[in-house]
């Protein structure tokens, strides 16, 4: 039997795209945690090796990677709270779009605060 899909994208709204982003950031964070557990466990093997590995992170590429990481975690955290609110609170489903934009507002505030410190720090590290 043929699949009904012709390959076009369903035009969902905030709910669908926040769910897609939640999945993508969730899987991304999972892979980060794998690496994070490995490099942190290295301190038990040898503090020298640990320092050497952490030093390689002081590059513009990794500084950018950290921005992506914090953005993904902050999104996943705030959207996760929104999903909980939608599931558990009476008015949650009615106001899910407002809740989404509130979560995005909080995300933006966290990102501004983080970048405020992170950009000078990472630039200071390079130059």
């Amino acid at each position, binding site marked *: *039997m*043929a*699949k*009904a*899909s*012709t390959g*076009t*994208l*369903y*035009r*969902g*709204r*905030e*709910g*669908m795209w926040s*769910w*897609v982003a939640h999945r993508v950031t969730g899987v991304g964070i999972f892979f980060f945690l794998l690496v994070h557990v490995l490099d942190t466990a290295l301190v038990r093997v040898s503090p020298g090796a640990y320092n050497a590995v952490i030093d390689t992170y002081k590059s513009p590429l990794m500084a950018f990677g950290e921005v992506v990481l914090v953005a993904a975690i902050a999104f996943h955290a705030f959207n996760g709270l929104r*999903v909980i609110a*939608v*599931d*558990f609170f009476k008015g*949650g*489903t*009615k106001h*899910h779009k407002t809740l989404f934009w509130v979560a995005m507002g909080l995300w933006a505030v966290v990102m501004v605060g983080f970048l405020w410190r992170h950009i000078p720090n990472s630039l200071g590290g390079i130059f």
Partner: protein
Amino acid sequence: MADTTQTAEPASKVDLPAHLGGGGGGEIPSFDCTFRIARFDPENDQEPHWEEYSVTMYGTDRVLDALHKIKWDIDGSLSFRRSCAHGVCGSDAMRINGRNRLACKTLLKDLDTSKVITVEAIKGLPLEKDLIVDMEPFFQSYREIMPFLIPSGNEPTRERLQSQADRAIFDDTTKCILCASCTTSCPVYWTDGQYFGPASIVNAHRFIFDSRDDGGDMRLEVLNDREGVWRCRTTFNCTDACPRGIQVTKAIAEVKRALLTRSLA
């Protein structure tokens, strides 16, 4: 002298925007628009392909009228379901411009007719021909939630009374016409055909919260399954797609909460 001049009755009582010729002399304006329809012939095709049709339509027309015009005047092989054509029977759910809609309730004046309008079959059910899908998996999960009154005790000699407040609890979910717009708009349902889907949960909700019904526990047990309400990821596609305006995601959330409070009690 008595004033005998009468104001002319407008031909159309629908207010049309100017680009569709509204505000003119009262005649129903016509315009050309192009439809891109996903065609699939099970005897010759491996997968659906797009075909374009240009038709002259009127400002009061719906997408279903355009499909009729194409079928009756251009290509008689175009296949789609429709029965009442007035948004009651739920036969003509299809994906119009990327969103699940009933073709008979989608007015052309609400679409951007300067662009091509895409029409394709609903997603997640086996495609049979053109815009027709096999609805059997959909009705199978509908039957599983036991969509009928399950009373207990002796049959009363008079009506089963219900207060207005008790009725209001499930009023929203009585409106379902089983068109499958919600179920086939659900990203979970596309990838996991075992999921009961929004429509089944809506119809379970209609009886679970009915004070006259005593089968609520059995239905909650069915929906407590791995493939039951817990599969819902609250994408709200179903709520946006419902042609009857049912708050589908809200109904699913209420069933989830009923399951939680039941296990706590």
